[in-house]
């Protein structure tokens, strides 16, 4: 059975943070969501210390084989999440991973302690694509910042800490190595690639925020190369993601060293994409096993 940092998983497919609201989906699809939950673990949307409304529209823009988003992390804030959302997410039939972002080590530490204290939470994902207000550096763009953040957080919990790497760096492997030195249990990648588009109707940036993050099949080759280079630099388990839309796509990530994969944008096109990718992956791997050489010459 696949596992991630000691968490047993039914299959190796989980969701990408921010691309599935299980509470909203339960209201739309009813109990069928729980009976046939598409993911082997559920990762929450990123929560922040204080509530956020999110960015002004327009928030999404379709691109060839993908999309740009500038959603802006709308969420109820740490306390709102713990009080209202966490009890409802605990009703899901799979382990729960909570994604956290903060702009200082102290705020990060407070969030990690409060979230990790909850029995319902199996692991924490650290979204480090944000500035440290003290240094001005984007944490996940700097190996030393990432290492220092993990050194602050590591003593606060025994629960697994997964660092969600940003792809908007020259060398993600160095950041992954920093995360490992700081005491991370796993890394997940990739987050969205910075991008923008011009609305032909106005000649101005299409997104309200001016720019956004690219996801979907368009980013898959970039994601695969980052997984390959991170695999070479660390021994940490890798959650691979970026444009996975089929079992064959997922198999590419596993072949390059990911132990688990995450499905994001594809769920928008197919709300049960997680189950489908897992089933397709299972038959891909079974075929590979069958076609392995039967003669053992040793």
């Amino acid at each position: 059975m696949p596992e991630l940092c000691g968490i047993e998983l039914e299959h190796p497919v989980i969701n990408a943070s921010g691309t599935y609201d299980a509470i909203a989906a339960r209201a739309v699809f009813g109990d069928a969501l729980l009976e046939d939950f598409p993911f082997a673990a559920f990762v929450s949307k990123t929560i922040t210390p204080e509530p956020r409304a999110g960015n002004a529209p327009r928030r999404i823009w379709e691109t060839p084989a993908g999309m740009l988003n500038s959603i802006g992390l709308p969420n109820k804030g740490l306390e709102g999440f713990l009080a209202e959302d966490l009890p409802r997410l605990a009703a899901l039939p799979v382990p729960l991973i909570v994604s956290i972002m903060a702009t200082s080590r102290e705020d990060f530490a407070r969030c990690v302690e409060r979230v990790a204290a909850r029995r319902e939470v199996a692991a924490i994902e650290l979204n480090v694509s944000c500035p440290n207000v003290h240094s001005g550096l984007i944490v996940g763009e700097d190996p030393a910042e990432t290492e220092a953040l993990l050194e602050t957080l590591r003593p606060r919990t025994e629960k697994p800490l997964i660092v969600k790497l940003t792809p908007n760096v020259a060398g993600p492997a160095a950041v992954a190595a920093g995360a490992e030195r700081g005491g991370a249990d796993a890394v997940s990648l990739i987050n969205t690639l910075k991008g923008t588009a011009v609305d032909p109707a106005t000649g101005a940036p299409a997104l309200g925020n001016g720019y956004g993050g690219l996801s979907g099949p368009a980013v898959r080759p970039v994601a695969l190369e980052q997984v390959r280079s991170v695999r070479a630099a660390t021994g940490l388990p890798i959650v691979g993601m970026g444009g996975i839309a089929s079992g064959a796509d997922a198999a590419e990530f596993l072949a390059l060293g990911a132990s688990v994969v995450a499905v994001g944008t594809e769920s928008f096109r197919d709300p049960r994409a997680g189950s489908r990718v897992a089933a397709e992956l299972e038959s891909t791997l079974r075929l590979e096993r069958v076609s392995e050489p039967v003669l053992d010459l040793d």
Partner: protein
Amino acid sequence: MNAPFGRRLCEVAANRDSGGYRVVSLLDHEGPEPEPGQFYMLAAEAGWGADGGRAFLPRAISVAATAPGARGGVRLDFLLDAVGPGTERLCGLGAGEGVWITGPLGNSFAAPAEVSPGAAGAVLVGGGVGVAPLALLRRRFGERGVPHRVLLGFRDRRHTGGLDLFCGSSGALCPEVRLATEDGHTGLQGRVTDLLLPILAGDDARSGVVYACGPPAMLEAVRALCAEHGVACELALESPMACGFGACFGCAVPKPGGGFLRLCVDGPVLRGDQVEEVSHAYA
């Protein structure tokens, strides 16, 4: 009633002209009857994204009419205006082709008394391809004996369509339907709000509720006029939707007083007082 979980493949039963638009009929063997105002996410099974990599995401489309399917299930009729790669592909679907659908999604129009206590009648105001959900609503009001008038506005001949969805069994436009076109090729020359204004100014206006769907500028005019005359209204809005089931947070519509609604799950039908100003920025 919940939507079936996940997307499902449906067959195109028919695709016909409807003025400047197309009516595409799908056979749905699994889903429940949709309510007026609800929508589906649609994507062609083949040739989706074939031209330059778009359309990639499914497209939100309101259901305009329903009927029992020839071989069981329900027939869903969608009124489509080709404005880009997604709607062009959907408009070109041939009978027997496959379409992925998820839905029915979103909320629906409420009865007049639920929108405004004591209200009994309805005024339906549609513009362009936005007449689609009002066609289903008019049928529902007809079945339930809710007194209603229908005002439809179109830009020009090319952008006039869907009128057959407002015809009786004789094939003639129902008597309660009034038309306005900006080029004057049929009906009153002017805007649909020119038809609405005298009704709102009438003594009994507050005993009715206005139900509107159409382009943002029309919805904003309707919202402002209703507010001015103290008449309750429900507006079916549009915003960019990647998923339709609350997953992406892309469909944000500003709330009066701050924050955002997710139009796919909190709408697409909103009361006039739930909206600050209907704007192109999110439509």
